[in-house]
């Protein structure tokens, strides 16, 4: 058998393909093909399950979501609203906490573990059950009068108290959802070379300046990853009412086409949001520039 001689470049390319071969197989079988069928399904009508016989029926399924179904749009808007309030808060809080945990504090290992506990509980059915017991409302509650005297609460009026309580409720939920983000930020902070801080300290930079001029630009790639992760995560959160709704239509009511269409509306919105974030963040991401400066 004749051995095929490849030049260095060809060999390099071939080796690369060997490494990504499983990914290519996986992508076509478990992602692109279902994605394609799903698009077809959302624009059509399923005739026969075997062999995916689908008849084109136009935008009927999409129209149904926006015009006929009275539940979908309000539910969708509610989820969007929830995501828009949560994501910035999660990012800010997790960055703050990561910076705190990155400082030289006592019992650092213990605190890092503690901040990871909600993640262990919170990614599935368990958290749903806990929320069913109103755990989130019990953490910080003004209404029970332990934090602030009752007289003052009466003076404030129940509306204000309820507003503050629900604000704290949001914060608590935000914190419980930021374990992974804290972790990602922590690893990003660890990767900032210490000499950068040392030399800027010699030049007389304050901690505040160092945060804006070193920390933030250096972790901006992780920040981007984190924002995308958070957006996706909050859209696929278990407490999100839309996902069970879609699933119910697909597997209980057997309305595959309509479920696919709703899935696509949902996905289209997420991807628009993510692209927007990438576009904005690209203006602020200076990673490569800084790396080169460090090297030279």
């Amino acid at each position: 058998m004749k051995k095929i001689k490849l030049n260095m470049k060809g060999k390099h390319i071939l080796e690369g393909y060997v490494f990504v071969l499983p990914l290519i197989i996986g992508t076509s079988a478990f992602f692109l093909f279902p994605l394609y069928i799903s698009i077809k399904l959302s624009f059509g009508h399923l005739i026969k399950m075997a062999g995916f016989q689908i008849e084109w029926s136009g935008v009927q399924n999409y129209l149904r979501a926006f015009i006929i179904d009275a539940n979908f749009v309000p539910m969708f808007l509610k989820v969007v609203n929830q995501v828009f309030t949560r994501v910035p808060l999660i990012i800010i809080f997790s960055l703050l906490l990561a910076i705190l945990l990155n400082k030289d504090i006592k019992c650092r290992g213990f605190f890092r573990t503690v901040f990871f506990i909600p993640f262990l509980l919170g990614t599935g059915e368990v958290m749903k059950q806990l929320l069913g017991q109103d755990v989130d409302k019990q953490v910080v509650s003004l209404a029970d009068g332990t934090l602030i005297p009752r007289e003052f609460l009466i003076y404030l009026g129940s509306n204000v108290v309820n507003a503050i309580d629900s604000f704290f409720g949001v914060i608590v939920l935000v914190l419980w959802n930021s374990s992974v983000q804290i972790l990602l930020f922590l690893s990003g902070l660890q990767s900032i070379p210490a000499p950068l801080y040392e030399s800027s300290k010699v030049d007389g930079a304050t901690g505040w300046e160092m945060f804006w001029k070193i920390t933030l630009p250096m972790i901006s790639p992780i920040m981007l990853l984190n924002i995308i992760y958070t957006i996706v995560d909050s859209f696929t959160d278990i407490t999100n009412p839309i996902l069970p709704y879609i699933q119910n239509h697909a597997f209980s009511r057997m309305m595959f086409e309509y479920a696919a269409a709703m899935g696509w509306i949902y996905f289209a919105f997420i991807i628009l949001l993510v692209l927007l974030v990438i576009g904005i963040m690209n203006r602020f991401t200076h990673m490569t520039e800084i790396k080169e400066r460090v090297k030279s």
Partner: protein
Amino acid sequence: MKEGMVSTEKKRILQEINIPLLAKVHEWFKTPKRVSEKIVRMGMYVLIIDLAFVFIFPFLFMLVTSLKTNTELYDITVNWVPKTLKFENYIIAFRALDYAIYSKNSLMITIMATIGHLLSCSFIGYGLARYQFPGKKILIFVVIIAMIVPVQTIIVPLYIVFANLKWLNTYLPVIVPTFFGYGLKGSLFLLVFRQFYLGLPKELENAAKIDGCGFIMTYWRIALPIARSAFLVTLLLSLVWHWNDFYEPAIYASKPSQITLPARLNELVAMVNRPPEGLFDEMALADGESTVNNAVLMAGICMVVMPVIAVFATLQKKFMQGIERTGLTGE
């Protein structure tokens, strides 16, 4: 100069009258630059302890409630420390959940899928970081898109694909994709490994190649062992996600004997509302204590999350070190 002498004198006197704490306080206020620093530091501790409380709260709540007796459960004065610990809750929950059977299901899925993620994502991630080839950008783009697409968008066709492969009512639909870089959040792990290898200097691998090491062997002998931190991160996240996930397993393997522990919790919730007959016949408990109540539910939840917490507790130190070492760029 003189002032300094006075202060040392004061300090000496304070130490002489044996109030070391006061001496310390004195010293503390004597150095103005450090005062602000220390106040900031104290504020930091206060903040971090407060936040730590919020984070640990659900866990404590769970633990405490799971040990409450029936009467204490509805007694609002018993907030934190129950007077008597009722460990029977755990026994009831163990039986009601059929823990022995369903934990085996969960374990099976979790272990296999995690192995799949570790193998495939390190392999593919290495390739995506180290090699330049046509179509690479498209591939990475697809991976990112795959991370964003909610599984609900493609679940129907996926279901049909697996039905055609006759994989339904097995765990294969959950396990097999993980060996190809897909599955539950597989794309995230791909990017973790890629990011890790991008930050790693190539010199070691190049040296191995010059010494005649083949490219697969270079990966296996050099790149794989170095990536310990990325491995730990992937291992832990994948374990936790798969253990807690019940969406996909419940759809593909829907036979009652195949469901996983988190899905089984739903049954326990149903039992809280309507206890089945005959569950307590052999356990002669006092009257009013023989109900599946919220305390039992909490005990059940505790038992469901316990394996994950145990794994995390054992790996915690190495995991956190791994997080620290993931940033190798600066070294």
